[in-house]
């Protein structure tokens, strides 16, 4: 490892941290977007389970203890289910095959 490598790595770490300063929002709400458009704003203080059906497929979403999660989906990769429950501002769950995005903060 050269001296230049350490400088390069330090610069890259700084760049990684830049987006953190732009985070903000209300953690009582989650926004569900389908194909980039806001579909629904969800109050995370009410526990509920609902099904999101689009032409691409089905996702079952659960709100529980101020957290939101996709508990079941019929997409091939199930990345949205594996993402688990989210609760902090800026966190997202994405289901790329169904073009669904859930983000905390309004």
């Amino acid at each position, binding site marked *: 490892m050269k001296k230049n*490598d350490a400088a390069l790595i330090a610069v890259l770490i700084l760049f990684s941290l830049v987006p953190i300063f*732009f985070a903000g929002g209300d953690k009582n709400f989650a926004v569900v977007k389908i194909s980039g458009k806001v579909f629904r704003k969800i109050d995370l203080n009410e526990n509920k389970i609902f099904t999101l059906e689009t032409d691409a497929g089905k996702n079952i979403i659960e709100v529980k203890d101020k957290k939101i999660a996709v508990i079941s989906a019929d997409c091939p990769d199930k990345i949205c289910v594996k993402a688990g429950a989210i609760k902090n501002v*800026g*966190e*997202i769950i994405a289901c790329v095959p169904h073009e669904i995005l859930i983000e905390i903060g309004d």
Partner: protein
Amino acid sequence: MARRLTRISILTAMSLTFFLFEGIFPTPFFLPGMKLGLANVVTVFALYKLENEVDALIILLLRNFLSVIFSGSPTIIFFSLSGGLLSFAAMIFLKRSEKFSVVGVSAAGGFFHNLGQIFCAAVLMESVSVFFYFGALGIFGIVSGIFIGKLANSVKLPK
């Protein structure tokens, strides 16, 4: 020519094997898609040890297209290509500057790989909030890049 073709073939097969092997395990980290990227050991190795730099690009592209067929998830091609190509461009630029060692170049490769994927996610999801993930993903990319660089550097190309 025969040797070149054989090396490309073997390295592509190895890279695909690493990729699929890593995919068997659930991601041990807290973000989906956050993984070591063992397949990139092959890319870094090829970039530094093969005679033609373009061969590393060929291996990268072949592995990306094959991984779609083997993993059965077509959307990953956008993520693989955006991450892989941005990372490759950054690495070849830094390598040619001759100011950095394989470890630094590979660390930048890991960083730009994740940056490319975040850009891709932002475009596909039409949302900029995905960038909030970059704090963790960028640093994780750098760390795995250092590891990958050291690993790739420690392997010799058989004659």
